[in-house]
């Protein structure tokens, strides 16, 4: 498959650091399918770099990790990367792991030529075991949030449609939720249930559900 993936990897606070480190799962999947990977890390996760690469490479998949709101997704140091009104070159699919971006920005992007946009209508919640803050990949609490959300990009890279990738990710959330319910209140992760349910409920696929890389 000839897939070009552009992924932003900001790292200016605890949350972006976690999201960036956990994006390794996505990068490993991309390597496995032989995708061309453009990592916009730290200071490279800025608007000029992103739009320049998009224009030049016309990537099939863009993964935007960072903070966001209804009208904007940010990069490193919270500088705006994409905002409402921005001219964007053709991209097949965008996955935005950023708060609320599906509310207005995502809708606008699909109206303006992005085939499908997967993101969140509400805040994306991340919880972290504070006693293991520095052990990012060993942080089992964070894993509960990062692994299901990573499934979106991983499923797309494996050939799923946008709709299927969104559902695949939700299946992971459901499995986790099911396991926690079965484990009951004695499980140290039982308290994660409302937050996991929140992320799952607000993750949406906009645009063409049959879009595929």
């Amino acid at each position, binding site marked *: 498959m000839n897939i070009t993936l552009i992924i932003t990897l900001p790292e200016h606070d605890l949350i972006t650091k976690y999201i960036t480190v956990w994006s390794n799962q996505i990068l490993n999947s991309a390597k496995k399918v032989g995708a061309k990977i453009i990592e916009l890390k730290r200071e490279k996760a800025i608007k000029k770099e992103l739009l320049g690469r998009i224009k030049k490479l016309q990537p099939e998949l863009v993964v935007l990790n960072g903070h966001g709101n209804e009208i904007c997704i940010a990069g490193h140091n919270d500088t705006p990367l994409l905002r409402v009104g921005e001219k964007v070159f053709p991209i097949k699919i965008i996955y935005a792991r950023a708060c609320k971006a599906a509310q207005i920005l995502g809708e606008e992007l699909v109206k303006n030529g992005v085939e499908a946009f997967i993101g969140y209508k509400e*805040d994306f919640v991340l919880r972290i*075991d504070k006693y293991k803050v520095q052990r990012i990949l060993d942080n089992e609490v964070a894993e509960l949030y990062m692994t299901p959300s990573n499934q979106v990009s991983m499923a797309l890279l494996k050939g799923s449609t946008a709709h299927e990738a969104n559902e695949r990710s939700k299946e992971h959330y*459901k499995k986790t939720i099911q396991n926690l319910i079965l484990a009951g209140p004695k499980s140290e992760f039982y*308290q994660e249930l409302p937050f996991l349910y929140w992320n799952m409920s607000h993750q949406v696929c906009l645009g063409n559900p049959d879009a595929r890389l």
Partner: protein
Amino acid sequence: MPEEISQEIIDVVVARLEESADGRFTAFGNEWGELSKQDLISEVRNRTDLGRKIIDVELAYIKALVSGDLLREVSSP
């Protein structure tokens, strides 16, 4: 004008948060930073915007659980 939140709801959400373990940071995007359990409780008690958000999260879950929607959802293929 945001909808008034009853004291009963505040009490339920605070009680649930108090029952939870201490060892978590919670982040709702970057607007409020990393919040401890006490931060969450305090935001709910003070009925701030973030407190309302936390209430939304908890109530959405409780409603889905009580109505049976949650179990239906997680057991559907």
